[in-house]
């Protein structure tokens, strides 16, 4: 039995109005397919922004989660960074895991990073941690964390969402009866590997005139997005839900709460309509004031749902998302 001992997040205090971001980033007006108007149907009014490095955002979340779990860093056996966007230094050469280890004195831990894009990195990290806890006698407590800061003028992931900066963390523990992980399901679709991507300095054409926005910002191949992702997105979600429920031996109606990314109002409406999940069972209350915090959405929304009583002890919670790269992933947790 592996459970979540504690979870926490950190969002910087400073906020920015989304209409200003959309103006600054020259986001188009008008209607997309299925009468979706990105600006009209976004549902986000402001997001958290900071100039701090993503590792520092992660550290604040980690410090909180350690405090909540009432443990010392030295009690952690494994640290997994599941950040899904570019960090302080270039990956996969560097990740923030070692920095976190140093800051919390997790002296006996091993550090690594899951290098897979998109919000699904949360589930990949969960899968990795659970596998290692199950197979290894000396891995009993695992810290998972993420820290995200998007570059200025790259807050909008058109036509999906607008991003907040922030960090999140959770601690998984062997023989923990709280928030027990009942099942994890991952479906990867590799042909969509380059729908969302950051080119990086390695793809520069000219050393003299660096176009940093072009090189360091997240790009979306709109044709691949429309022809590839949108066409199959909700088919994949339905397949995913069926598979993870089967793994856990449950039915859809058994699930008390769905934790889903806070991308946008239009996306959430489509999710509910296409999967048959009742709107009141999808926790999205903070969309308007926060927007999307990458893979941390899964933890942040879980924490908020706990704090306002939307998730109660004994509830069955499905945490699910899609993630650039592309993957559809879910976990069922008995809180």
């Amino acid at each position, binding site marked *: 039995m592996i459970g979540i001992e504690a979870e926490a997040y950190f969002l910087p205090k400073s906020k920015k109005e989304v209409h200003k971001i959309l103006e600054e980033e020259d986001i188009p007006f008008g209607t997309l397919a299925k009468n979706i108007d990105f600006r009209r149907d976004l549902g986000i009014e402001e997001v958290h922004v900071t100039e701090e490095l993503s590792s520092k955002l992660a550290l604040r979340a980690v410090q909180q989660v350690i405090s909540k779990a009432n443990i010392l860093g030295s009690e952690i056996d494994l640290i997994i960074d599941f950040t899904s966007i570019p960090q302080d230094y*270039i990956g*996969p*050469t560097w990740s923030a895991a*070692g*920095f976190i*280890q140093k800051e919390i004195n997790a002296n006996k831990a091993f550090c*690594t990073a899951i290098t897979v894009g998109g919000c699904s990195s949360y589930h990949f990290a969960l899968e990795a941690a659970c596998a290692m806890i199950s197979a290894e006698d000396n891995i009993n407590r695992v810290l998972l964390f993420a820290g995200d800061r998007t570059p200025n003028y790259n807050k909008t992931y058109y036509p999906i969402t607008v991003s907040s900066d922030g960090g999140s963390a959770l601690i998984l523990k062997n023989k923990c009866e709280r928030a027990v992980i009942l099942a994890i399901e991952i479906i990867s679709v*590799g042909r969509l590997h380059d729908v969302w991507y*950051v080119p990086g300095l390695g793809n520069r054409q000219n050393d003299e005139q660096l176009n940093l926005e072009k090189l360091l910002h997240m790009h979306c191949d709109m044709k691949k997005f429309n022809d590839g992702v949108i066409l199959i997105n909700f088919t994949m979600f339905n397949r995913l839900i069926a598979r993870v429920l089967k793994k856990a031996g449950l039915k859809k109606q058994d699930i008390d709460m769905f934790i889903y990314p806070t991308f946008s109002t239009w996306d959430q409406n489509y999710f509910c309509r296409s999967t048959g999940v009742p709107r009141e069972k999808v926790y999205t209350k903070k969309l308007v004031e926060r927007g999307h915090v990458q893979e941390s959405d899964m933890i942040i929304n879980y924490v908020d749902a706990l704090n306002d009583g939307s998730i109660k002890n004994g509830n069955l919670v499905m945490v699910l998302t899609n993630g650039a790269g592309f*993957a559809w992933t879910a976990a069922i947790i008995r809180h």
Partner: protein
Amino acid sequence: MKISGTSTPVGIVSTAYCLPPRKMFVRDVFKEEGLEFDLAIANQMGMNHVHVFAGKWRSELALEAAKECLFKAGLNANEIDVVVDFSVLPQDYVVPSWCMSNKIQHELGAGKAFNLGFGGGGTTNLLTALKFVVSLIRTEKVNTALLISTDVAIPGNRVINQDAPLTVLGDGASALIVSKDTRVCEILNIELWSDGRKNDVLCIPGGGLAHPDRLDLYRLRIGAGGYSEESSLRNLKSVTERAAEKAGINLEDVTIFINPNISRKDRGKLLETFGLSGDDLFVDNRRQYGHIQGTDFVINLSQMINERSEGQHNLAAVCSHGWGFSYGAMIVRI
């Protein structure tokens, strides 16, 4: 043999590597980077030339390695359950937003696999990936895993470091297939440990959030102030001893020590620290290829697998010090 509480044997059933055809003499690499190449450096490195990739997509090398690895294992792509990337250097696009294993899954047609990568640990990424897939196999979540990597040096950044060279980078890619119920190259135990104080010793400082526009810092460097060869190798020996102990053997039972082809000096220091005598087993690999990150392990492991005698098994330790940050040791029966 009961290992780590399970009797499921897990092994490396095939290995492959792919090197780009173009070669460059190490002395010419030094010249191109405006550095002196004297006898002392030549002796320290023990490298003649490196392979140099000239294409656009470095993942192409990994794809070739993966195809060969599948062929050697006699497997179809649709028998792969998980694809894991263990690369170290920058990829086709910026990691972690992009992950090569997705592209490889697609190109191979490994439709049922799920895909991810492990990063941040230098050459120890391979041992991390192996630990993950062994855990998945032993907990019966998957049967067969494909591990892949590709590493291509940043142009003008093959000599690491330029002021006091530690190694010279070659380009290349590799793949391994790990499967259950096999005693071929059986993995007995993997031990990992990190020293977070050294987290930024191996680093490319420019191009990330810290220094987005510093093209001059878009270079791999080993932070000389943070790296100590002696303490790194001492720590590595401790990790390797623990790995051996947990595998139920003594370090003295291990007859082959496989480490990355960093330099002749590094190999010599490893042998000295571990109290070993004998030949430098991988001298030819280092001479021909330089240091290709985790692919070094695959090249050296392949050599040992090819050289084994029928019916005779040796215990090997695959050891990585991750430049003092990320340590790993795997005990494997070859």
